C-alpha cells in the first residue's frame, strides 16, 4: 500500500528545471499573495498573469513525472531531514489544487466588486497564497515534520480566510473551527510524539520500513486518526463545517470544501497505510461512520432551508463516500484488483468532488448574490433569470449525485465494483442510498428554482466571468468521468 503513496527510492534525480518548478509551486503563491495584499487586484487579468507561472510549474512537474517517474528531494537542515516526493498522486492533487485555487482567485475580484467586502478583503490574497503553498506541500511532503508544518499553515490560513467576512456568526463559527482545528493538530502532534519516541525518525519512507504493528503504532494511529478526522470533518466530528460555510465568502468556501478538508483526509489515509497496514476493524469503523455520514449529511442537506447549508452538508455526505472506501484500501487480505479499483475510485471521487464542490459553491454564491436571498425559497423563478448559474449548479450536482457521465459516476462505479468483489454489501447500499439522497436535496433546490409562479425579484447582474469560471470547474468535474483514464493513468505507473 505504501508504494502507492510513492514511499520508495526514486530512480532518477530531478532536473534543474524541475527544481525551479517546485520552488515556483511552493513559494510563488506566497509572493503573489503578499503582493496582492499590497496592491489588491481589482480585475481578473492580474490574477491571470499571476497564475500563468503557477500553472506552468504544475505542468513542468507533470511532464517531469511522466518522463522520470517518481521524483524525490531531500534536504538536511541542522540535523533535520526534510523530504519531498512527486508521484502520480501528488501531481494529480497538485494540479487539482492549483486549478481550483486559480479559479477561486479569478472569481474573487468579481465577487468583491459586487459585495463591498470591507477593509479586511485584501488579507484574503496572502491567506489564499499560504493555503495554496501549504496544500501543495502536503501533497508533496514525506516527513511528519513538514506535514505538521504544512497542516498548521493550512489550518490557520483557512480559519483566517473563513472569518474575513467579519460577521458575528462567521466569527463564532470561525472561533469554533479555530479551536477545534488547533486541538486536532495537537492530537495529531501527540501521535507524532509517540512515533518519534518509539522509532526516532519522522520520514515516512523510513517509518514505513521500520514500523511494526504494536501498541505504539496503534495508539499513534488512534491519536492521529482522531485528530485528522476532526480536521477533515468526518462524520461525528463534522458539525463545525456547516456554520463555517454558511457565512464565508464564496471563493473561500469553494477552496475550503474542495481542498482543505481533503488534505486532512489525504494525510489520514497516508499515515494509516503506514501505521495500520493490516488492521481489520479500524477502517471498518471509519466506513461505518461513513455510512452514517452519507445518510446524515444527505438528510441535513435535504431538510435545510438555506442554500449554503445545503451545499456544505452535502460535503459531509460526500466525505462519507470516501470513508466507506477505507476497508477496501486498508486491511488484511484485500485482493489486488478491488484494492486497485478502490484506490483509483477513491482519488477520482476526491478530485471530482473537489472540482464539483468548488463549482457548486460558486454557483450557489452567484445565485445568492444575484437574488439577495439565502434561502431555497428565495430561488423561485431563477430558472428564467439565472439559467447559467443554475446550469452550473446542475452540472456540479450531477457529479455529486454520481450520475453518468460525471467523474462521480465513474468513481462510484469503481468503488461499487470493488465493494461487490469484496462482498461489502452494506457499503454498496450506502453508496446507492447516497445517490438517492443527493438527488433528493439537489432536486429540492431545482424544484424551487423552476417555480414560475413566484413573484419576481430584482436581480443583481453578475460579473461576466463569474459563471464562466464556475462552469469550467463544473465541466472539468463532469468531463473527468469519461476522461478518467488520463488522471488515473498518472497513478498507474510508479510501482518500485
Amino acid at each position, binding site marked *: 500500500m505504501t508504494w502507492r503513496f510513492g514511499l520508495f527510492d526514486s530512480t532518477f534525480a530531478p532536473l534543474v528545471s524541475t527544481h525551479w518548478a517546485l520552488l515556483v509551486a511552493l513559494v510563488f503563491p506566497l509572493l503573489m499573495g503578499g503582493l496582492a495584499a499590497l496592491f489588491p487586484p481589482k480585475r481578473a487579468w492580474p490574477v491571470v498573469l499571476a497564475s500563468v507561472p503557477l500553472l506552468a510549474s504544475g505542468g513542468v512537474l507533470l511532464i517531469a513525472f511522466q518522463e522520470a517517474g517518481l521524483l524525490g528531494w531531500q534536504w538536511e537542515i541542522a540535523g533535520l531531514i526534510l523530504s519531498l516526493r512527486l508521484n502520480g498522486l501528488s501531481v494529480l492533487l497538485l494540479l487539482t489544487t492549483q486549478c481550483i485555487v486559480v479559479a477561486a482567485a479569478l472569481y474573487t475580484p468579481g465577487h468583491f466588486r459586487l459585495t463591498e467586502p470591507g477593509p479586511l478583503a485584501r488579507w484574503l490574497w496572502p491567506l489564499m497564497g499560504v493555503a495554496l503553498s501549504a496544500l501543495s506541500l502536503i501533497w508533496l511532503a514525506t516527513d511528519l515534520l513538514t506535514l505538521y508544518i504544512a497542516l498548521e499553515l493550512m489550518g490557520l490560513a483557512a480559519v483566517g480566510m473563513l472569518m474575513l467576512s467579519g460577521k458575528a456568526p462567521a466569527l463564532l463559527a470561525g472561533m469554533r473551527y479555530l479551536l477545534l482545528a488547533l486541538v486536532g493538530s495537537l492530537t495529531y502532534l501527540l501521535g507524532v510524539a509517540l512515533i518519534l519516541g518509539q522509532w526516532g525518525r519522522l520520514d515516512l519512507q523510513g517509518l514505513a520500513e521500520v514500523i511494526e504493528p504494536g501498541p505504539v503504532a496503534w495508539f499513534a494511529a488512534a491519536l492521529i486518526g482522531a485528530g485528522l478526522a476532526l480536521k477533515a470533518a468526518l462524520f461525528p466530528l463534522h458539525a463545525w463545517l456547516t456554520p463555517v460555510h454558511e457565512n464565508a465568502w464564496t471563493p473561500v468556501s469553494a477552496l475550503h470544501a474542495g481542498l482543505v478538508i481533503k488534505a486532512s483526509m489525504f494525510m489520514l489515509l497516508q499515515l494509516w497505510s503506514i501505521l495500520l497496514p493490516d488492521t481489520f476493524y479500524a477502517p471498518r469503523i471509519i466506513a461505518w461512520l461513513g455510512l452514517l455520514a452519507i445518510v446524515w449529511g444527505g438528510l441535513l442537506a435535504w431538510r435545510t432551508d438555506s442554500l449554503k447549508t445545503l451545499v456544505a452538508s452535502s460535503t459531509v455526505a460526500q466525505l462519507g463516500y470516501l470513508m466507506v472506501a477505507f476497508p477496501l484500501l486498508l486491511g488484511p487480505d484485500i485482493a489486488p484488483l478491488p484494492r486497485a479499483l478502490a484506490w483509483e475510485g477513491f482519488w477520482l471521487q476526491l478530485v471530482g468532488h473537489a472540482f464539483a464542490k468548488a463549482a457548486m459553491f460558486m454557483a450557489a454564491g452567484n445565485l445568492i448574490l444575484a437574488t439577495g436571498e439565502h434561502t431555497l425559497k428565495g430561488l423561485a423563478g431563477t430558472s428564467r433569470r439565472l439559467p447559467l448559474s443554475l446550469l452550473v449548479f446542475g452540472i456540479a450536482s450531477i457529479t455529486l449525485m454520481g450520475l453518468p457521465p460525471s467523474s462521480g459516476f465513474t468513481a462510484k462505479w469503481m468503488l461499487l465494483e470493488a465493494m461487490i468483489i469484496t462482498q461489502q454489501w452494506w457499503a454498496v447500499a450506502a453508496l446507492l442510498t447516497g445517490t438517492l439522497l443527493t438527488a433528493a436535496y439537489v432536486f429540492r433546490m431545482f*424544484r424551487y428554482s423552476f417555480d414560475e409562479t413566484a413573484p419576481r425579484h430584482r436581480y443583481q447582474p453578475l460579473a461576466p466571468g463569474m459563471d464562466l469560471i464556475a462552469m469550467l470547474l463544473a465541466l472539468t468535474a463532469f468531463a473527468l468521468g469519461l476522461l478518467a483514464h488520463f488522471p488515473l493513468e498518472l497513478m498507474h505507473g510508479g510501482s518500485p
Partner: protein
Amino acid sequence: MNAAWLPLTALATSLLVAVTIFALPEEARRLRTTINIGAAVVKIILVTLMVRRVAAGHEDIFSFQVIGGLDFVLRIDALGVMFAGLSSLLWLCTTIYAIGYLEGSANRKRFFGFFSLCVASTIGIALADNLFTFLIFYEMLTLSTYPLVVHRGTEQALNAGRVYLRYTLSAGVVLLLGAVLLNNLTGDQSFSSEEGLGDYLNDHRGLLTLIFILLVSGLAVKAAMVPLHGWLPRAMVAPAPVSALLHAVAVVKAGAFGILRVVYDLYGIELSVELGVITGLAVAASITIIYGSLRAIAQQELKPLLAFSTVSQVSYVILGIGIFGPFGTVGALAHLLHQGLMKVTLFFCAGNYAEELGIHRIDEMDGAGKRMPLTSIAFTIGALGMIGLPPVAGFITKWYLGVGAIQAEMYWVVAVLVASSTLNAMYFLPILHRLWFRPGPSHGKGSWPHEQRLGRLETHGWLLWPMVFTALISLGAGLFAGLPYSPLDWAARVASGEYLP
C-alpha cells in the same frame, strides 16, 4: 472500413445543438429555429447513411477507454439504427411542432436546449454498445427530461417532476447496481458479442437471474410497466411536444429498447429462455397491457387517457420480447417504431385540440371533426392503429405478436391481444364517435372552451404539418409494410440477425 466518425457525428449533432442553443440569447428565435431544424435534417441524413452502411454489412465503431477494463463504445448496428432512425425522424417532427406550439411563450431557450439534449441521449442510447455506455445516456435522458417535464413551472408540474424523478432515479440506482454486478461477473460485455452469457449459466444461475431482474426492473420504470408506471400519467402536465416525445420516443422507448438490448444482445435470447425469465416478462407485460387499457377507459381527460394508453401499448414491445421466436421479436421491434409514430400523432392531435380549441376533456370534443378535419383524421388514424385495425401500422405488430405467440404456444397471449384490442376500441371509438358523429360547437351547439384562430388552415401550420406527416407515415408503415426499409422489413432484418447464427 470503420467509419468511427459516423456514430460520433450523429451524437455530436444534437449535443452541439444543445450547447449552441444554450449559448444563444433567448431572443434569437429565428437563428435557433434554423439551427434546430438544420440539425434535425442533418441527423436524418446521417441516420440514412447509417442505414445504408448497416445494410451493406459495415460495422462502425467508435470507442475509447474510460478506465481499465471499461470502454465507452458507440457502435452502429441494425437494432440501434432502428431506434436512432425513429428518434431522428420524430425529432424533426416534434421540433417543428414545438416551435409552433411554444410560439410566444417563455423559456424557449431552455426548452429547446434540453430538448436537443434529450434527443442526443436517445441517439446515445441507440448507439451504445455496452451497458456502461448505455447507462450513461440513460441517466442523461432522465436528467434532460426533468426540465422539460417541469417546464411550465406550476405547482402541478413541479410535483409531477418530483414524482418522475423519484421513479426514474430509483430505477437508475437499481440499474446501476445490476450493471456493476454484471460487469463484475463477466467483465465488459459488448452488445455485439455473439456468445451472450451462456458460459456463466452453470455456475451463476441465481446471480444471473438476480441481475436480470435488477436490470429489467430498472428499465421497466422508464418503460412504464405496472406497477412502476405511476410517473407517466402525472408527467402529462408537460407541454404537448414533451408528452409526445416522452411517450413516443424518448423515455418509454428508451426503457423498452433497454430491455430489448438486455434480452437479445446482453443475455442472448436462448439464455433468457433458459433462465425462464422471459415468460415472467411476458406475464408482466400482459398485466400492464390490460391494466393500462382498463385505466384508460376510466379517464375523463384526453392526455391522461393517452398516457394510460401508452402504458398499455409500450408493453406490447415487452410482450414481443417475452415471446420466444422470430415473429415475437419482429413484432416487438416493429412496434417500437409503430407505436412511436402513432402515439406521437395522437399527442400532436391532443396538443392541437388544446391549443386551437382549448379542449382538454373528452366530453368537449363533440363535433371537432368539422372544425379541425385534418387533426381529427390524424387522430382517427392513430386511434385505429392503437386498436390494431388495418391498415394502420398497429395491425402489423399485433399480427406478428399474435402469430409469434401461437408459434411459441403461448395461446393466452392471443387472448390478451384480442382483449386489449377490444378495450382499446372501448375507449377510442367513443372519442371517434364524438369527433365525427356528434353535433358540437362547430354545428352551432355550445361553444369551444377556448378557441383561438392560430392559422389560415384549421390551426397553425407548424402544428399541423408534422402531425399530418406522422399520421401518413403510420398509415404508410402499415399499408406498405412489405416495402424494403419499412419498419417491418428492418425489424425482420434485426430479428434474423438474432435468430440465425
